Every structure is written in structure tokens, then in C-alpha cells.
């Protein structure tokens, strides 16, 4: 896949702390890229540098193969974590103002806003003042404003906060649709379930350093604990003896005659051999390699860098 956006050894120093310490990321075109990390890790600083709100002290951002310029902000849609609207202004008027600031003409902006307001079934909000809207409603309007000019790059910082499950789903589907029609998306969140669901690639930042990055499946298998989950029917004693000392069996559960066991090989034990031994002794219902959740990976990776062994 083509590289769409990259950060190369970006350094940002604030008065008395180093916000970004030679961070590099690479976002492939047409992917959803998860930018993860604990609070204060430097994610927002990196996002602001990509948006050219602040400039890096060292390093550079490359956008579509070239060093990013101020012209490129037209191709970026940014939904910051700290987002708000003018309370006293009317919803429609304000949406139009903000998309015009992005460089869209008044006529075109009006046309597209009409379309999106209809799509989200919020036409009746047009003449309301923002202060009359609930937080979730305002978020919806902001989402529309962000994607309206169909930018090539979309950056969402915690896009789901404040949404109910129905609207979360609506927005999630919109994000996937935007990816499918060609947008590249950078997605920053603390909700790891949505990362597993949406992201193709991730980068995990802690203390201003990129500590883990890559394709999400690849990252997950890198952290796989080499454990397997077996559900079978048959004699547990027979299984235990057959596998011998090669493995540790944990957490045996029984429901009716269906048994459930976690297998951890003690040393290298080819999976193929293991399966054939099991197969000779019991009836396999299912055999799965246990992949770690992003939640576990997040916690492990962060703790490893916080307290290196």
C-alpha cells in the first residue's frame, strides 16, 4: 500500500517536558490508522503538528509524498477532542461558516450541508441556536462539518464521546464508508474495542515515543501469548497423559460432556503435532490460538516501557 502520510523523527519540546521524542509513523493510503497511547503521551501534540497548528522542533511531516504545506490543510478534516461551537449562533449558519473557512464556496457548502442534514435527519436543527442542542446533537453537527468537504485525510480524536450506542454506530458506519470511498483516516481513542473493530494499522505512543506500531493483526500476533483454547469431548485424564509434560493445562471447565481447557506449551511444541496428539485421544470441538485483545496489548506495552525489566 502507498504511504499517504508520514511523520519522520518528529521532536517537540515544551518548556519543561519533551512532548514528542523522535516519533515516526507511517499511514498507508486508504487505511484507518489508530493513534493510541495513555493520557499525556503526546498524541494530541502529534495531531496538532499534522494539522500545522503547531510546528515541530525537528523532523517533518510528509503528505502524499511531499513535505506538508499550509495548502494541504484543505485536504484535512480534523475533529479535535476539545471541540465546541459558538453557543449563540444558529446551527446552519455556523456550519456554513466553518466549512467556508475550510475553503468551500458558500453555494457548494449549502448544497452539501442540506444533503448531510437530510441524511442524518436533523433538518429541523438548522435554525436552532447551538445552546439549544444536547451535547450528542452538537457532536453530530461537528462530525458533518469535519467530513463535509470530503478531505483526503480525516483525523478523529475521540470521535465517539458523548454519543449514545445508536449514534456511535451511525458514526462508525460513516467512518467505514468514508474509508471505502478513498479517505485515509487517523483515529485516536482510548476505547480499544473500537480500535479492534475499525483500525487497520496502529501506533502506540507513550512518553513521547512510538513504542509499538504496525498492522493490527501483525501487532496482535506479535503479542500473542502462545496459548490455545481447546473445547473437546472425551476423557480429560487421557488427554493429559497423551500431552505429557510438554504443556500446561489450565482452567478446565465442564458443561455437560463438553470440556474447555487452555493449553500453554512449555517449550516449542509444533502446533501440528499437538493437534494430532489431541485428535488421537479426544474429539475436538474447536481449537483456537488465543489472540490478545488490544486492551491487553495496550496495558502490557505501556507498562513495559514505564517499568522496563
Amino acid at each position, binding site marked *: 500500500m502507498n504511504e499517504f502520510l508520514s511523520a519522520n523523527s518528529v521532536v517537540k519540546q515544551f518548556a519543561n517536558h519533551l512532548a514528542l521524542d523522535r516519533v515516526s509513523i507511517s499511514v498507508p493510503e486508504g487505511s484507518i490508522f489508530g493513534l493510541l497511547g495513555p493520557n499525556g503521551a503526546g498524541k494530541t501534540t502529534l495531531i496538532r503538528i499534522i494539522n500545522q497548528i503547531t*510546528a515541530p522542533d525537528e523532523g517533518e511531516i510528509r503528505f502524499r509524498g511531499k513535505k506538508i504545506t499550509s495548502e494541504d490543510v484543505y485536504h484535512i478534516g480534523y475533529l479535535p477532542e476539545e471541540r465546541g461551537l459558538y453557543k449563540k449562533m444558529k446551527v446552519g449558519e455556523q456550519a456554513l461558516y466553518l466549512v467556508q473557512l475550510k475553503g468551500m464556496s458558500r453555494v457548494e457548502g449549502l448544497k452539501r450541508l442540506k444533503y448531510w442534514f437530510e441524511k442524518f435527519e436533523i433538518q429541523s436543527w438548522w435554525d436552532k441556536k447551538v445552546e439549544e442542542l444536547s451535547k450528542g446533537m452538537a457532536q453530530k453537527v461537528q462530525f458533518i462539518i469535519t467530513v463535509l468537504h470530503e478531505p483526503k485525510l480525516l483525523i478523529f480524536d475521540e470521535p465517539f464521546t458523548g454519543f449514545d450506542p445508536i449514534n456511535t454506530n451511525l458514526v462508525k458506519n460513516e467512518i467505514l464508508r468514508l474509508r471505502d470511498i478513498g479517505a485515509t483516516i487517523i483515529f485516536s481513542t482510548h476505547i480499544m474495542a473500537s480500535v479492534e473493530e475499525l483500525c487497520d494499522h496502529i501506533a502506540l505512543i507513550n512518553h513521547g515515543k512510538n513504542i509499538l506500531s504496525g498492522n493490527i493483526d501483525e501487532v496482535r500476533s506479535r503479542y500473542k501469548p502462545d496459548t490455545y483454547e481447546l473445547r473437546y469431548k472425551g476423557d480429560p485424564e487421557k488427554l493429559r497423559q497423551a500431552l505429557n509434560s510438554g504443556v500446561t493445562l489450565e482452567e478446565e471447565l465442564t458443561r455437560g460432556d463438553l470440556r474447555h481447557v487452555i493449553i500453554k506449551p512449555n517449550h516449542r511444541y509444533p502446533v501440528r503435532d499437538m493437534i494430532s496428539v489431541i485428535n488421537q485421544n479426544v474429539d475436538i470441538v474447536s481449537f483456537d490460538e488465543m489472540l490478545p485483545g488490544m486492551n491487553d496489548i495496550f496495558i502490557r506495552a505501556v507498562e513495559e516501557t514505564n517499568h522496563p525489566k
Partner: protein
Amino acid sequence: MNKVSLIIQREYLTRVKKKSFIIMTILTPVLLAAMIFVPGYLATKEDNQEKIIAVVDNTHITEGAIPQGTYLKFEYIDNPDVEKLKQNFEESGYYAILFIPENILVSNKVQLYSNQQTTMQVSEHISSALKNFFTQLKLKNENVPLDILERIKTSISVDTIQWTSTGEEKEGSAGLVAGIGYVSGFLMYMFIFMFGSQVMRGVMEEKTNRIVEVIVSSVRPFQLMMGKVVGIALVGLTQFVIWILLTFGIFFGAKGILLKDNGQAMTSVTQSLMDANNAGPVAAAKTGEYQKLFDDIANKFGSVNFPLIIGCFLFFFIGGYLLYASLFAAVGSAVDNETDTQQFMLPITIPIVLGLFVMINAMQTPNSTISVIFSLIPLTSPIVMMARIPYDVPTWQIVTSGLILILTFLGTIWMAAKIYRTGILMYGKKVNYAELWKWIRYKN
């Protein structure tokens, strides 16, 4: 540039469309005009009631000495019984009783009895008439011929005439000049304060409502700040122009009506317009003299260099406003809420208020060292210079003051932009001066 004009447009329109702006813009000149007219108008209204004063004259010589006014009549009572008159005062319908004692030439006093507070005008009228009468009487007793009496009548008025550098002479009015200086200086103070703090509140609104990060992803923080500053300046200029037009409109409209109605109203108006030290035209209450007075005032207005004053006002307003508005914007960006503004507001407020005090002083002593110095210091010059301008300030001083102001506001905007850029994205941090200094020194 297109984006900045979008921002200017929004800042301008949202403010101009506000009800409070429309009400204030229309109401202020109406109130101002009312303040000038109502006292004068009320004074004439009261005079329109016919007042009859009963005169008890124990000297028996003053009859006819006090001229009858249009609404003020004097009635001499033949068989004087002051006590009885006082008892029946309510039924008699008299406004007051004037008692002239027999020994008036010794005591120099007459008494005016009434059940209400009599007006100054009535006392003035009686006093000047009797003074005249008894002066003539005394002179006659000293055998001074009457024609000499006529010839020694003297009235001196002071015309203030000023040389210009070209040797041309022009007539001016000290009161008028001071008045114009005061009004423009005070307006300057008010505008800088009012619209400067609007900038601050606007910046804080964007920061506390978290709008700012959305916007600075499309425009540079400097563009946003300048868009706001310029937009609000235009609001101020709009208000200024409307005020001037409305005030003149109301003034001349009302003048037309009142002049037709009663010349006296206009006298009170011009009187309240002019400096209180100027001789009030109460004594000169003859219709013919009003016209002369108007001509006089028109003449004096003509001697004031309005293009210079208005030009300077616009220049110093824009300069002073830019200077203070950028400071206000920096403060607004650095704080999270209104209460935190206090510590930063004080150093901004002090020079403005100081400027106001020096300005009041400069009205009397426009060329004193203090006035000159403070009209050069950029933080106070817009206010103080405006009070001095009507007094023909040397050109080099205006130019120097203007140049210093321009350099200072350029510097302040640069500095404010640096604070602003960092401040607007900084939440939940108590900011102090050391912190601000760090922000100014940030590279990007």
C-alpha cells in the same frame, strides 16, 4: 486573506445584529440629546406660566422701575398690609410678594415672600431692574447729567483671538475648545475600553467553548486573532458614525422645532453647551441678541479645525484600539475564565484610567510638560492627545506621538500573537507572568 475577511464578517455581523448593540446605538444619542435639551426645555415650559408678583413698595417711588416680562407681571398694591397679604396668599393667586422697605438705600435689600421656592431668573430680573433704577436715582441726586449717564454705560466682552503661524487671526472660544477636547478624549477612553474588552470576551468565548481548535485547523491563530480585532473595530467605527449622525440629526431637528417655538429654549441649550464660566446670557435677554449669539457660535464652530480633529480621532482610535485590543486578546487567550482575568487586567486598566485623569488636566493646561509627555506615551497618548488637539498642538508632536503609537502597536500585536497562539490551546493551567514570558519566547 479570504478567510480573514470571513472571520471579520462573522465577528462584525454577530455583534451588529445583537439587540443590545442596536438599542445602545440608537438610544445613546437620544439620551445625549435629551441631556442637552430637557433642562432647557423644562426651563421654558415653566416660564410659560403666567406669574404675578405683588409689590409692596414702602418707598413709593419704584412703580414702573421693574419691567413687565412676557409671563412675569408685577402688580403694585396701594394699601400695603404685608401680614394680611401673607394670610390670604393662597386665595390671592399671586406667585410671590415683593417687599421693598423704606430704608432700601441703606440696607440694599428687598424681600421676596412666597410659599414656594422662587426661581433664580425671577430674583435676577428684580435685582437687575432695581439696581439700575437706584443707580440712576443716586446719580441724579449727585447732579450727574442724564446724557453723561447714557454715555458712561459700558459693556466689555472678551474675544479670544489667536494667531496662526501664517499670521492669520481667528476667533475662538475657550469653552468650546475645551468641550470638544473633553468629549473626544472621553469617547476615546470609552471606545478603547468597551471594544477592547469585547475582544477579550470574544477570545475567551472561543477558548472556553472549545471552538478554537476547530478553527485553527483551518486558519492560522494570527488570522483568527486579527480577524476578531478588525471585526470589532469595525463595530466600534459603525457605532461612532451612527452616533455622530444621529446626534447632529437630533440636535438640528430639535433646534429647528425649538427655535420656531421659542427662542429662549435655544439660549438655555447653548448655555448648557458652553463652558459654565462663560457669561450666561440670562441678563442679555433680548430677542435680537439670540440671533447674534447663534452667529457668534456658528463663527466659533467655524474656527475649530474639524477635519484635523476627526482625522486624528480616527487615527488615534485605530492605533490605541489596536494596541489595547491585542493586549486584551492576549489576556483572554491566557485564562480559562473571567475571574482569572483580574491579575492581568490591572496593568492594562491603570494606563487607560491614568490617561483619563491626565486628559482632564490637559483640558486646562494643554501645553504643560505632563500633558505633552502623556500625549507621547503610546499607552495614554490616544486619550490625552485628543484633549490637546483642539488647542493646536505642534505638528511634530502629533507626528511623533503617532509614530510611537504605530511602532508600539506593531510590537504589541506581535507579542500578543505569540501569547495568543500558545494560550488558546492551553487548558486547566494557572498562568502567571513568568509563564507568559515563556510563551513569548517560544519559537513557533
